[in-house]
């Protein structure tokens, strides 16, 4: 019940701030464009690194999305107000984490056509790629939501969030890049499944542990 209330609130807030979503998409798209400029016109190199660029673009954009998701909570201490109602801290966490996950998944889906065009990659199997995007976005959003909450009241939050988050999501990034790369470039050894399984393991750890820790972060 409380999770539904939290999700409803998040979706409503997202809808009201949809202009920011567009800005974050443009930021992600600009990142992909800049990576292609950095590598140059070598289409083979671009194709080879397309998956890496896609996930780097998503990861960089995620710091904006995650930090933004706590902006409205801190303006008038709305999060404190909800906790005093009392709303369950875990319901609030999972509501926000699911909302961030949805945003990152949509962003990932939006960036795929750009990747295909800019890096001249073949169009991968759409449902398999969607699965990898969803699993990878989940691995970014769960710890990202926790760290965004931790840094939301810090003065240097824009610096602190990536500093804390990036080292933690390296395993997620590696698995997601590898699985995406195999989907784009071909998978003769049938390794995608193993990488996705590894990714799902990281997801399970992050989603369970961060939900438990959020309670302490907001109460202390």
């Amino acid at each position, binding site marked *: *019940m*409380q999770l*539904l*209330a*939290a999700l*409803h*609130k998040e979706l*409503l*807030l997202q809808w*009201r*701030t949809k202009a920011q979503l567009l800005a974050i998409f443009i930021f992600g798209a600009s990142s992909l464009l800049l990576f292609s400029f950095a590598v140059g016109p070598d289409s083979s190199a671009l194709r080879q690194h397309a998956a890496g660029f896609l996930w780097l673009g998503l990861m960089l954009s995620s710091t904006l999305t995650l930090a933004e998701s706590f902006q*409205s909570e801190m*303006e*008038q*201490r*709305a999060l*404190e*107000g*909800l*906790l*005093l*109602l*009392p*709303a369950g801290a875990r319901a609030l966490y999972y509501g926000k984490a699911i909302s961030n996950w949805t945003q990152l998944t949509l962003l990932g889906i939006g960036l795929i056509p750009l990747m295909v065009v800019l890096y001249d990659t073949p169009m991968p199997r759409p449902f398999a790629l969607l699965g990898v995007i969803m699993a990878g976005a989940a691995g970014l959003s769960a710890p990202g939501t926790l760290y965004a909450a931790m840094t939301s009241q810090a003065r240097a939050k824009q610096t602190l969030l990536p500093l804390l988050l990036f080292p933690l999501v390296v395993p997620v990034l590696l698995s997601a890049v590898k699985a995406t790369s195999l989907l784009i470039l071909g998978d003769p050894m049938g390794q995608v499944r193993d990488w996705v399984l590894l990714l799902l393991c990281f997801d399970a750890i992050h989603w369970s542990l961060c939900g438990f820790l959020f309670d302490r972060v907001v*109460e202390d």
Partner: protein
Amino acid sequence: MRGSTLAVEGDAICRRYGRRWALVDVTFAVPTGAVFVVAGRNGSGKSTLLRVLSTAIRADRGTARMAGHDVRTHPQEVRRQVAILSHHSYLYEALTALENLQVAARFLGKSAERTALLPLLEEVGLAERADDPPLTFSAGMRKRLALARVLLQDAPVVLLDEPYGQLDPPGFRLVDHLLGLFRERGTTALVATHLLDRAAALCDQGMVLEQGRVSWTGRAADLPTQSGLAAAGLPEGD
């Protein structure tokens, strides 16, 4: 049982920010159904005390019981019994006034229907602005909306931190009316204010905080004459 007659009990509450003590051994009791004033100058510890009682922050030493529950050991139970009007409005700027109430109603397990919540907005004089976001509101209107949120909670204990602050004369009358309403319903109210005459007229008992310590307790009616605050320059009325 202690909690049956006393709605709020503070027991040697101490709280510090850094090296400065904001509250020092604050001990007091408020009977169930009473309207109790906490008076004092700016920085005397009124808001800190209310935040400790609401479980928004923890006491460094001492404790308090709200409606029979210890704020330190049973914060969730306390939160179910207490509503607070804070210095912070606890509102989402991007949502409309009505949506802000709907968000709170859903978490409280109450009806979030427009028809159920509009009477609350009417009560605080914001029905016509129900579909406008607080971003477009004045400070006084935000306070009215925050009051509507307190009413929505319908808690047995209400903590009001400077409820008259930023309000216009009709707003003052609204707060007076709400304090009367709380008294009728048997709701215990703690009001932090420095408006001594208003507190004397509307509250039953009270105490004065000075530099975080209780310097006076007694009947609220005696507050302007006996507490020493009026002599110290605090306003006696609006």
